[in-house]
């Protein structure tokens, strides 16, 4: 069932051509210097190319050929060459990348028209896509890191596209620093993997593996390297700054796709190159992941900037994904192949889901932004009346990311829970005690996510408009709507027919953790059964059908026994309705109960109310002060240390010539001393 008649063997070549095409588009965009026609051209071509790439990757994934498609180009490091390979894992992530890319390009066709500085966006957008594709298909350390950093660089350029906003520049700077930090960590990791003779090709590394102590070091470095790109706490700080700064379709790519590329890097190195895992590695991963999930969603709850809220949710979902991966590590280390496959499948499933609904949500926020010019929820409201389609799509996305059945987000979290429930099979005490706690964290983050998206959707789209801009909003263009509704449809499909996705993920799990879940094809619409039916099962289709049936039943019953009459009147509101929209609940006040429960200990949340004295006409104000523990405990001190060191050393620029001579003299003497005392 190969799409476009491309056999799996040549798929890698086709993908490389797609990359070449994207880079070509980037060059054209540079030459076009942001003419009006360029926008349409760039996004159309990007859309076509990514769509083709999606088809190729999908066919490769479904065919699941025995041997991966590979090729070597005479580039990169001269004596290794640039190796490229597509195995099941790469194919899956290619699907994720290009699916997101296609959606973003489609969206960009409409959204890009509002761009104020197209010449700063158009050249880098295709380059960014190309970079992400390259990372996934790269098969030697040098090419991998080159593409990795190229991807970072392109996205950095997009983050600073609107460079008059000072905070965008700051975001870009921090982002580039963290990205390079991560890259250097990965570089060290590869240095260890490459060994003395410097074997940089993945296949060779995978054969050699690594000795346990070295492997542990590699794991730590990889956690830093990929974690800093994916947004694991405490390496997440750049993410909520950088993702919102970019144009929205780019934010969608960064949040929905680039973080997944980071996950790919983790999987590739830890599961593929590093050889058999040791059980306590998973403790490390699980601990970080659990904290990331909970902290991420709590951060998100405290935000009232829509895009920043979404960015923090990316942090949370990355946590969930890494929980799955950590479980997979734990099970694999203990030889429980099927359980490992379950956890791994859950993680990959969530990767796909998150890329879909996070892109959808960022598109929605972009639609809001271009319709109202507002990102701050406190100035939104009532958009559901003026932007019904956007509202609907955003609603589906919100429900999906809140892990509500029968949508796709629920399935992957359900699978993760099922994997957690297999933890008694593990012999190690540490894991037995840790995993249920992580499960609690997962449950907590899921519940909080629901709360957060009630807030996000409710405050932005429901209620009465809080600003004239919101009151004047207009529904966005067809391309954007199409992109959003398409992704919404995917959310539903993934939730209703999870079996199809899980079957497609089968070969990936087989390759990397050596186990596979029972294949349900051809009747994949039947319930998904992770282990055994007596243990647990879920059937999205039936649930969906039952709910739909029940709705119809209710409607019919009302038609028969009741009346459909309805009348509009002012809101009741317990008898004292207030016309001013200021009396509605705002984003801040909505989060207040949760802030009182969690904020106190984590963010040192302070609320101070300043009450006007009787007779004063000014309004009372409530100020909420939050403090970011991670920033204040980790990054601020580092910054302080660097600047202090710089201040300490700076006087050395201003010595007298004699003192400089003194330095020379001193250097000479000390070396001579060493030489004299040399045995």
């Amino acid at each position, binding site marked *: 069932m190969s799409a476009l008649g491309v056999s799996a063997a040549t798929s890698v070549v086709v993908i490389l051509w797609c990359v070449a095409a994207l880079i070509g588009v980037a060059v054209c965009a540079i030459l076009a210097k942001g003419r009006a026609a360029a926008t349409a051209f760039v996004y159309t071509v990007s859309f076509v190319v990514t769509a083709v790439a999606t088809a190729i990757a999908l066919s490769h994934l479904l065919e699941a050929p025995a041997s991966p498609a590979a090729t070597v180009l005479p580039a990169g490091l001269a004596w290794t060459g640039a190796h490229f390979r597509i195995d099941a894992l790469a194919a899956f992530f290619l699907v994720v990348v290009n699916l997101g890319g296609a959606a973003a390009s489609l969206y960009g066709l409409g959204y890009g028209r509002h761009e104020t500085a197209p010449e700063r966006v158009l050249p880098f957008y295709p380059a960014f896509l190309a970079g992400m594709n390259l990372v996934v298909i790269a098969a030697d350390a040098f090419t991998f890191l080159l593409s990795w950093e190229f991807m970072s660089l392109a996205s950095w350029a997009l983050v600073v596209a609107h460079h008059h906003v000072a905070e965008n520049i700051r975001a870009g700077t921090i982002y580039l620093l963290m990205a390079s930090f991560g890259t250097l960590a990965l570089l060290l990791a590869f240095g260890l993997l490459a060994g003395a003779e410097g074997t940089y090709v993945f296949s060779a590394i995978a054969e050699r593996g690594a000795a346990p102590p070295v492997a542990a070091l590699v794991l730590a470095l990889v956690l830093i390297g990929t974690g800093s790109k994916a947004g694991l706490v405490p390496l997440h700080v750049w993410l909520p700054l950088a993702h919102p700064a970019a144009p929205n379709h780019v934010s969608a790519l960064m949040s929905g796709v680039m973080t997944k590329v980071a996950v790919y890097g983790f999987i590739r190195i830890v599961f593929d190159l590093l050889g058999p895992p040791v059980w306590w590695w998973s403790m490390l991963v699980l601990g970080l992941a659990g904290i990331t999930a909970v902290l991420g969603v709590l951060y998100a709850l405290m935000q009232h900037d829509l895009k920043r809220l979404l960015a923090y949710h990316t942090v949370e979902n990355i946590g969930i994904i890494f929980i799955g991966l950590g479980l997979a590590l734990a099970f694999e280390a203990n030889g429980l192949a099927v359980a490992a496959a379950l956890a791994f499948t859950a993680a990959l499933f969530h990767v796909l889901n998150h890329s879909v609904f996070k892109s959808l949500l960022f598109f929605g926020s972009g639609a809001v932004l271009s319709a109202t010019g507002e990102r701050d929820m406190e100035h939104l*409201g009532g958009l*559901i*009346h003026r932007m019904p389609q956007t*509202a609907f799509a955003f609603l589906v996305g919100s429900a999906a990311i809140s892990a*509500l*059945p029968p949508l796709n987000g629920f399935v992957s979290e*359900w699978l993760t*829970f*099922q994997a*957690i*429930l297999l933890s*008694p099979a593990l012999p190690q005490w540490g894991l*037995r*005690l840790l995993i*249920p*706690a992580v*499960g*609690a964290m997962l*449950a907590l983050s899921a*519940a*909080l996510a*629901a*709360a957060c998206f*009630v807030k996000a*959707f*409710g405050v932005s789209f*429901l*209620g009465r408009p809080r600003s004239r801009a919101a009151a004047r909003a207009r529904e966005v263009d067809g391309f954007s709507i199409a992109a959003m509704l398409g992704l919404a449809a995917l959310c539903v499909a993934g939730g209703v027919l999870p079996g199809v996705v899980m079957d497609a993920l089968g070969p990936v799990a087989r390759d990397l953790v050596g186990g596979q879940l029972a294949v349900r094809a051809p009747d994949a619409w039947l319930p998904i059964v992770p282990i055994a039916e*007596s*243990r*647990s*099962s*879920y*059937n999205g289709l*039936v649930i969906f059908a*039952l*709910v739909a049936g*029940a*709705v119809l039943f*209710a*409607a019919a019953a009302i038609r028969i*026994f*009741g*009346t*459909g009459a*309805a009348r*509009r*009147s002012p*809101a*009741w*509101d*317990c008898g004292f*309705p*207030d016309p001013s929209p200021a009396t*509605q*609940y705002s984003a801040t006040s*909505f989060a207040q*109960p*949760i802030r009182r*429960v969690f904020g106190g200990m984590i963010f040192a949340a302070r609320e101070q109310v300043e009450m006007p004295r009787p007779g004063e006409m000014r309004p009372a104000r409530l100020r909420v002060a939050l403090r970011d523990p991670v920033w204040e405990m980790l990054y601020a001190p580092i910054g302080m240390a660097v600047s202090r060191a710089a201040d300490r050393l700076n006087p050395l620029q201003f010595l007298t010539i004699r003192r400089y001579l003194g330095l020379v003299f001193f250097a000479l003497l000390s070396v001579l001393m060493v030489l004299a005392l040399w045995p």
Partner: protein
Amino acid sequence: MIRELAPFGAQMLLVLLLAPLLQGITVRVKARLLRRRGPPLIQPYRDLARLLRKEVVLAENASWLFRAAPYLIFALSWVAASLVPTFAIDLPLGRSADLIAIVALLATARFFLALAGLDVGTSFGGIGSSREVMIASLAEPAMIMIIFSLALVAGSTALSTISVFAMSPEVGLRVSLGLALVGLIMVAIAENARIPVDNPATHLELTMVHEAMVLEYSGRHLALIEAAAALKLLLYMSLLACIFAPWGIADAEADWTAWAIGGGAYVAKLAAGCVALAVFETAIAKMRVFRVPEFLGVALMLGLLATLLRLVSRSL
């Protein structure tokens, strides 16, 4: 096909019909305990019928979501309630959702209820939703933890399997089960907005949660929401019944008689549950909203403790 699905359909109808009765019983018993006569048992049915026939009064800026939400909430609660084994286990389609999925279905219902509360843009709706999600954000993890402990005991999250296990002799008195039971009751109280967490009867705005959300609803919409609430109460009661008191429940290859016995037992259990609930609610007073987190925190801790204790005892 039809023959296969018939029992499940019967279960769906059963729960739908029984749900209002629960409220009737509870109210009645409470009134008795307060030395009042109280309304007749069928009063809830009457109310619902009346509401259905009334015309709906919509706030001016109520959106399509506001009108669609009641149907969704009702449907989700109903499906969830009918997925819990009532008079028999292992009904066809009964396995299409395990305990986690059922809880998640309720969460979906709550998601839309909270949104509906925000839709009109009144302050009371806001209070209701924000408190509701706060409570839920603690109740759901607690519930999941309880499910964990049960699942680890029974080795499954499928309710049928759990109740089979609960009937089997090997389940002795286990501390973790006891903890789970207490926790589950606490969660059930919170989830159903009963005293001490919330007061279904009150309309004193500042203390109410559930009622504040549905303040703007009227007519058939209100009817659907009330029905959904009733179904939710029934759901939790039958959950307690089939996990902790699975006696008389019919198993897979049972015949009509067994089903009849099961049904009878089920109704009896429900009645008992309602009486217990009434007594409990009469006995204690409502707590302040910001005591609720502590209340639910206890439930969460109980769940986690149950899980860990289970693990420990398993590995000994």
